[in-house]
C-alpha cells in the first residue's frame, strides 16, 4: 500500500512537471512578457535592461527551473492586467470556486446515486423511463443553455432566486464564504445546480449500469437465497459493490467540476477562478493563464491520489495483496 502511494506520488510529480513545462512555454513564448508589462513608449535599451533583470536572457533551462522554483512557492508573477501578484488574485477567487464546486459535486453525487439506484431497482417502470429520457437531455444540452434557462425561470419569471453574484459574504480569515448568509445561500443554488447537472446525469447512468450489473452477480443471488431483506441486499451488498467504480469517476468529475466552472461562473457572474481565467484570456494576461493551468492540473492530481487511497478503504482485495494487486 505504501509502495503504491509512493509510486502514485512520483507519477503525480511527473504530471505536474509536464504541465509546468506547458505553462512555462505559454508564459515565456505567448506574447512578449516585457512588452506586456511596460508601455510601448519604453525604449528598447530600457527593455533590454528589464529583460536582463528578469532573467529572460538566461538559458531557457535555467528559466524553466526558476519557473518551477517559483511555482512551488506559489509565485506566478504579476498579472499584466491587474498589476497584482497572480497568487493573491487566485487565492482571493478560490473560495468562491471551491464552494461552488463542492455544492454542485454534493448535488451531483447525492442526486446521481439516488436516481441511479432508483432507476436500477425500478427497471422498466414509467418513472425510470422518464428519468432516463430527461438525463439524455441533461447530457446533451450545453451548460450555458441550462444556466440561462434556469435564470429565466427562477430569477426572471418567478423571481425566487438571484441570477448573478455571490450575495453577501462573510470573512473567515482569508476565506470569504457565501455559505453563512441567506443571500449567499440563495445565490449559490442556481449556479450549483447548473454546474451539477452534467455530472449528476453521468453519475446516475454509471450507478445504474453498475447496479444492474451487480444485481446479476452470483453473490447477490446467494444473498437472496439466504433470505436477506431487500434493504440489506440493495443498499448493503449491491450498493457497496456499485460504489467501487463510482468513486473513481466521481473523483475525476470533481476535478472537471472545477474546470467546467468556467462557463457557469461566466453565466452567473460568479467571482471565482473560472471567471478570472476568462477575463484573463480576453486580454492575454499570460501569468494568470499559466497559473490557472497549473492550478487545474494540481486539483486533478490531488483528487486522483485521494481516489486511489479511497479505493483501499472500500475494496479489501487491494489492501491485503498490497502493491502487486493494486496495480
Amino acid at each position, binding site marked *: 500500500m505504501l509502495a503504491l502511494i509512493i509510486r502514485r506520488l512520483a507519477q503525480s510529480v511527473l504530471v505536474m512537471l509536464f504541465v509546468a513545462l506547458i505553462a512555462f512555454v505559454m508564459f515565456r513564448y505567448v506574447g512578449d512578457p516585457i512588452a506586456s508589462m511596460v508601455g510601448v513608449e519604453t525604449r528598447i535599451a530600457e527593455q533590454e535592461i528589464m529583460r536582463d533583470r528578469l532573467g529572460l536572457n538566461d538559458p531557457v533551462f535555467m528559466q524553466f527551473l526558476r519557473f518551477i522554483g517559483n511555482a512551488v512557492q506559489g509565485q506566478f508573477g504579476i498579472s499584466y492586467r491587474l498589476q497584482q501578484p497572480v497568487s493573491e488574485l487566485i487565492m482571493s477567487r478560490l473560495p468562491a470556486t471551491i464552494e461552488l464546486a463542492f455544492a454542485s459535486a454534493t448535488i451531483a453525487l447525492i442526486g446521481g446515486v439516488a436516481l441511479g439506484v432508483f432507476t436500477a431497482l425500478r427497471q422498466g417502470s414509467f418513472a425510470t423511463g422518464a428519468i432516463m429520457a430527461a438525463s439524455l437531455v441533461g447530457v446533451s444540452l450545453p451548460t450555458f443553455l441550462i444556466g440561462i434557462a434556469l435564470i429565466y425561470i427562477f430569477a426572471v419569471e418567478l423571481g425566487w432566486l438571484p441570477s448573478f453574484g455571490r450575495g453577501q459574504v462573510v470573512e473567515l480569515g482569508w476565506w470569504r464564504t457565501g455559505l453563512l448568509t441567506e443571500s449567499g445561500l440563495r445565490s449559490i443554488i442556481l449556479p450549483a445546480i447548473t454546474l451539477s447537472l452534467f455530472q449528476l446525469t453521468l453519475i446516475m447512468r454509471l450507478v445504474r449500469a453498475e447496479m444492474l450489473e451487480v444485481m446479476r452477480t452470483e453473490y447477490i443471488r*446467494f444473498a437472496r437465497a439466504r433470505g436477506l431483506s431487500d434493504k440489506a441486499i440493495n443498499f448493503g451488498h449491491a450498493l457497496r459493490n456499485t460504489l467501487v467504480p463510482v468513486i473513481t469517476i466521481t473523483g475525476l468529475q470533481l476535478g472537471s467540476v472545477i474546470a467546467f466552472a468556467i462557463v457557469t461562473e461566466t453565466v452567473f457572474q460568479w467571482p471565482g477562478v473560472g471567471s478570472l481565467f476568462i477575463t484573463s484570456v480576453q486580454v492575454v494576461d499570460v501569468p494568470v493563464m499559466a497559473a490557472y493551468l497549473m492550478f487545474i492540473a494540481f486539483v486533478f492530481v490531488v483528487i486522483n491520489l485521494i481516489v486511489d487511497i479511497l479505493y483501499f478503504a472500500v475494496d479489501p482485495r487491494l489492501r491485503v495483496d498490497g502493491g502487486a494487486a493494486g496495480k
Partner: protein
Amino acid sequence: MTEPLLSVRGLTVEFPTRRGVLTAVNNVSFDIMPGEVLGVVGESGAGKSMTGSAIIGLIERPGRIAAGEIRLQGERIDGISPSAMRTVRGRRIGMIFQDPLTSLNPLYRISDQIVETIRTHLPISLAEARRRAIGLLDDVGIPDAERRIDDYPHQFSGGMRQRVVIALALCAEPDLVIADEPTTALDVSVQAQIIDVMKRICADRGAAIMLITHDMGVIAETANRVAVLYAGRVVEIGPVRDVIKDARHPYSVGLMGAIPKLGGDAERLTQIPGSMPRLSAIPQGCAFNPRCERVFDRCRVERPEPIAVAPQREVACWLYDEPRSDGRAHA
C-alpha cells in the same frame, strides 16, 4: 410412512421467448423425506438448476412457474408473498451454488456475511451469532476459525470458500439444503472433502439434501435416492442402489455406463450417441426417441409419463407400460 419434507408436484417452468414458449422444466414431481439425500442428475440443460431455483423461488424473469405445486412440510411455498418467501430462504431451505469464488460478496468479511444471515432469521444477539458462526466454521473444517472469521473471501482458497458457503447455507439451520453442483468449480483433489463435509454437517443437523450434479460417482456415494432428468422431465427416479444396478430407462442405462440388462445381446454402452435436444426442438412423443436404441412407434407419437415399476421406482418410458413390463416385447 412419514410425511415428505418437500413435495414437488407437476412443476413446470416456462420461458416465454419471441419464438414461442420454452419449457425448461416439464411436469416434474418428486418428494424429499426429512434427512434424506436426493441426487439429481442429467446432462447440461436438463433443467436441474431450474428445478432448484423454482423451489427456492429464484427463477429469473422472464422465466416463471407455469404449473405445479411445491410444498414444504405440507405448506405451499410457490407463489407466496416475497416476505413469506424470505422466511423460507435461508431459514428453512439453504442453497449452495456452484462457484464459491463468486458466491461470496468480496467486500464483506466472512463474519459479517454469516452473522447477518443468522440475525436475519434468528432472534439472537450479535455476540451469540458470532459465537455460532465460529462454531460453524469450525464444523465445516476451517482451521483457526476464531481468527479466520474476520478475513475477506479472497483470503481463502476455493475449497475453503466453498466450506464457508456451506456454513452460510446452514447457519440458520434449514431443514433442506439444495446444493447445485457444489464441487464442479473446485479442484478435483478437494471435491470429495467438500462433499463429505456437506454430507456430515447436514446429517448432524438432520437436514435433507437435494444434490444436483453431473457426477454419478458422487451420487452413488452420497445419495439415498436419485432422480434422472432429461429435457426438463424426470425420466427415472428410485433408490440409488437400485437405479445403478438396474437402470430401467434407456437414458439412465446409458448414463450409468452399464451393460444393458434389458436387451438380450449384451452390448456395451459407454456413451449415449447424440445430444439432448434444444428446448425449442424437443421431438414429439418421448423426448429421448431420436437417441433411443429401443424406440418404437408409440414413442414418436405419445409422451410417456412416469410409471411405477417397483416400490419407490418410477420410469417414464413406454417399455414399461404393459402388463408384461419386462420390456422385452419391443426389443
